[in-house]
């Protein structure tokens, strides 16, 4: 049974084989649809621009902010850049209130960014750490991984607070 199914798979095409392997017990048609949906669900990631909603990964009190301006770059902000944002969601008793305009450093971006050695790095989500105008973080903790490129951008304080450095 299994061998016959495998031979069928190879007839359908080698490129599909890996995807089919994940659900070998399933029917051929359904698993084919699944691979296709996986392939197309990958969104093209772009710059952090006006109206991008970012997660706040510190204990400043804000939960979600919306980018209203990138301070550098024509197309928008990338990993390590500073943005101006408006607080969209906040904890009831945090330092930062909803509706305030804040500055933030992009510590994680889903769009890939080149590194100094020519390789690239990308993250799971778009996340920001709120800072004041001088670049000092408002919160006292930073959650999740942050890139070591922040050192080049003079955000050493965020790096020291971070749990993991990637």
């Amino acid at each position, binding site marked *: 049974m299994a061998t016959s199914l495998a031979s069928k798979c190879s007839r359908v095409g080698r490129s599909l*084989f*890996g*995807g089919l*392997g*994940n659900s070998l017990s399933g029917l051929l048609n359904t698993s084919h649809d699944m*691979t296709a949906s*996986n*392939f197309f669900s*990958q969104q093209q990631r772009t710059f952090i621009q006006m109206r991008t909603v970012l997660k706040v990964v510190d204990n400043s009190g804000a939960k979600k902010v919306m980018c209203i301006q990138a301070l550098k770059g024509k197309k928008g902000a990338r990993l390590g850049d500073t943005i101006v944002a408006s607080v969209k969601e906040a904890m009831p008793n945090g330092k930062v209130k909803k509706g305030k305009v804040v500055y933030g450093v992009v510590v*994680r971006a889903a769009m*890939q960014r080149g590194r100094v*050695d*020519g*390789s*690239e*790095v*990308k*993250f*799971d*989500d778009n996340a920001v750490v709120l800072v004041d105008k001088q670049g000092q973080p408002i919160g006292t903790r930073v959650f*999740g*991984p942050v*890139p070591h490129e922040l050192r080049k951008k003079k955000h050493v304080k965020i790096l020291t607070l971070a*749990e*993991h450095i*990637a």
Partner: protein
Amino acid sequence: MRLEKCWFCSSTVYPGHGIQFVRNDAKIFRFCRSKCHKNFKMKRNPRKVKWTKAYRRLHSKDMTQDSTFEFERKRNRPERYDRNLAENTLKAIKKIDKIRVTREERHHKLRMKGKKAKEQKEAAIELEQSIHLVKAPSVLAEDQSLTLPKIKVKVQAQAEENHAMEE
């Protein structure tokens, strides 16, 4: 400078090559090229994709355990620089590489043992079963050169047994 291994195909990722993806739990996935990255995005399992090292190891197509692999292992403690040590290491690399190649060859030879006989046997069966697609059976009956000669085995023991039964 550290040479990392690709998460998908286990090949070496040289500095400046490929892309790395950092998951939110800070696990780093390094990929040697876009081919591996795309396969990862398609959620393929490297153990089920035939060209990866993981598949070949799993199906024992490659040599898996050998003392030569120990030298390549990741070490977390940085070694203090010593000129003599570095020189010796550079000399040893060539030697170890040669040993590894010969061992891999041996492994391949051992694995391929009996392959030719098996192939010939399968070819003979194929010929016998599907020669009628090429030549009509009536032609075959006249011309014996197209089929393999039948091997005759004498069955004497069976005949004796039959006699015993009759008694």
